[in-house]
């Protein structure tokens, strides 16, 4: 069996739109109310249907953006369709629809009716200018009341953890956090513009050195109806992550095309941070100093002239080792999968 046959994405991410109710300064997509680009209801459902047909292991559909809830009925219909196909669903939102408890309840009930399994609310310092913590809390608690598990992700704020503490210590949140119907976590944050404020983040380099499970594990349909190999923060900054334009019948072949590219396998096994370390030797420090996110390292790896030249010149040295490690890991994973399925 070829390695490509052993892989099958488990997650389909639909980036419904680049448009957003907010216009955060450091947004990875530079989303705002004026940005164009969105998928129609018909296209979303067609892509879900094609992915379901093409990939046996597909189990989760994630609706994100931009702000996915701006699609309103088209989103609810797409969730309902996924549910009818036996797929789990997750929506990623900024929580703007929680201005009042009543408004939040109305939207949460529609999401529940469509069959939504999980709501993720992304927030952070920059978000606060557009979506206050009260909206986030209203949206999250309304979702939990409707029976939808909710995860609030707060971008790392640096030394001061005011926002996450405000959310965690809100009396409204306490019963939900205690019952684990709402979880709160902090995620590392990366800048996209040179005017970004400095944020002190304690980074565990071991986490940056890990391989990237997004590659081969997920596929992404973008608002321009392209298929992408990852759903990372810098996916739209790295043209190489774009596998091609969807035509309604080519999703499987676009996905399989990644396996001809050793770099994709290498990113999956070692991750971009380790790749830069290995290829650049003593020069690695100048490229990796201050890197706080694996997606940041991935962008640097793809865009820096010296690293690109070194990769092209030396990659063949790493092929036997990396492919052996990938083969062994996959063989172990396949064995576990078959044993669990048989038991």
């Amino acid at each position, binding site marked *: 069996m070829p390695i490509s046959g052993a892989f099958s994405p488990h997650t389909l991410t639909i980036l419904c739109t680049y448009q957003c109710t907010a216009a955060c300064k450091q947004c990875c997509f530079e989303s705002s109310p004026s940005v164009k680009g969105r998928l129609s209801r018909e296209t979303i459902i067609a892509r879900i249907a094609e992915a379901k047909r093409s990939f046996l292991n597909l189990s989760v559909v994630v609706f994100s953006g931009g702000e996915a809830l701006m699609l309103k009925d088209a989103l609810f219909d797409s969730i309902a369709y996924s549910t009818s196909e036996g797929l789990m669903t997750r929506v990623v939102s900024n929580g703007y629809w929680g201005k009042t408890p009543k408004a939040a309840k109305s939207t949460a009930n529609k999401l529940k009716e469509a069959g939504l399994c999980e709501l993720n609310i992304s927030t952070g310092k920059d978000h606060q200018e557009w979506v206050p913590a009260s909206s986030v809390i209203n949206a999250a608690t309304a979702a939990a009341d409707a029976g939808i598990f909710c995860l609030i992700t707060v971008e790392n704020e640096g030394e001061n953890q005011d926002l996450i503490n405000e959310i965690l210590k809100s009396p409204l949140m306490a019963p939900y956090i205690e019952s684990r119907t709402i979880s709160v976590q902090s995620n590392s944050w990366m800048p996209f513009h040179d005017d970004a404020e400095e944020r002190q983040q304690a980074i565990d380099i071991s986490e940056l050195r890990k391989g990237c499970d997004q590659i081969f594990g997920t596929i992404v349909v973008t608002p321009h109806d392209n298929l992408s190999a990852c759903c990372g923060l810098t996916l739209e900054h790295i043209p190489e992550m774009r596998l091609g334009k969807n035509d309604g019948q080519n999703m499987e072949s676009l996905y399989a095309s990644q396996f001809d590219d050793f770099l994709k396998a290498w990113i999956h096994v070692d991750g971009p941070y380790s790749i830069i370390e290995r290829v650049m030797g003593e020069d690695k420090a100048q490229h990796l100093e*201050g890197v*706080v996110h694996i997606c940041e390292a991935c962008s640097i790896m793809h865009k820096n002239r010296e690293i690109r030249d070194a990769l092209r010149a030396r990659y063949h040295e790493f*092929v036997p080792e990396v492919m052996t490690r990938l083969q062994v890991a996959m063989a172990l994973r396949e064995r576990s999968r078959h044993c669990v399925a048989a038991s």
Partner: protein
Amino acid sequence: METDNKRRRFIQATVVAPLAVGAAGRLHGAPASVQPLSGASAGAERLVLPLANSGLPVAALTDLTKVSVLVESVLTDSSAANSFFSAPRSYFEAHGLDGSDSTLLDGSVAMLVALSAPAVKDALKNRNYTEFFDYMKAAGVFEPRDPSVLQSRIERIISSNIDEIRSAIGAQAETPLTPDQQAEFMAILKSSGTVATEEDLAVLAQVLKGDGGVTIAACSAMAACVVGIALLAVLYVSAAVAATVAILAAITISAAMMTAITVSGSQQPQLRSAPFTGQFMKLDPAAVRNLQRSYRLAQTTQDGELQLHALREAIREEVEAVLVSLSNLKLIEVSPGGMPLAIEAVTHYAYKAAGVPTSNAH
């Protein structure tokens, strides 16, 4: 700040694609969301490393069948296991695989080598999981870590929220809990949906108060307080993780457990709202990674008890770290020599609350 700016200028200066007009200030160029054709979109500029140009036979590099057979034989055939364990490098090379040091140090490969060791096979056969995990630590399958890191981080969380915790457990020593406070703690425990009961808590209290020699400053219902403080501290973990170690994605123990298999079809234990479920482990990413490796070992060996053993060890470590922290911060007082029994008692209560069966194995 200057270092940060310097670094940002360096990234900007070294990107391949020239920054688009009006894109001043972008560190990674213009995203396709606003400039669909930006960057090296096609052709020679696209960074692709074709396997076909690597000078090696692509079919062999990408075929899984041969490697699957090798893995299966090493895990199930003692003769193959012995050959592989005694000389993994030459075994790989004889099968057309890479046997370099980098390959042998890989996590999956190191795990396969360790699982082929006769001592490990014996440990699994005899259900001696302590020996099994000791071997894995020595073989480098698990990252070396210092348990005091977790304890000090837990202590820092409790310390930085100590006023709230004190107010939750009562303001003055020897003052019994008010009915409201008692109801609040009991509600936390009752809402857990776990199998631990009030009677369990009463038993725990007796153990702590009696042979454990534990007294809790400002709290008469000491067992409820220990458990309650732990639950309160868990609430602060998310913020503390952000301040202590930035995580890259949703590293949650509960998520790990969700995917941590149900080996042989066994059901996942109920873990919600139990005071100690491995949640504090998020404060030490190395501990999370080791726990995830334990689950991979359980999957590979199809031995669900391995997973439970790892979870029990995580719970025990959390309980110890929390109790030591509470003692250091004078929130509880433990008689000399009483700590081991207190840890033992709370650990067993935590197992029960988390729905983790007590082991009959080693």
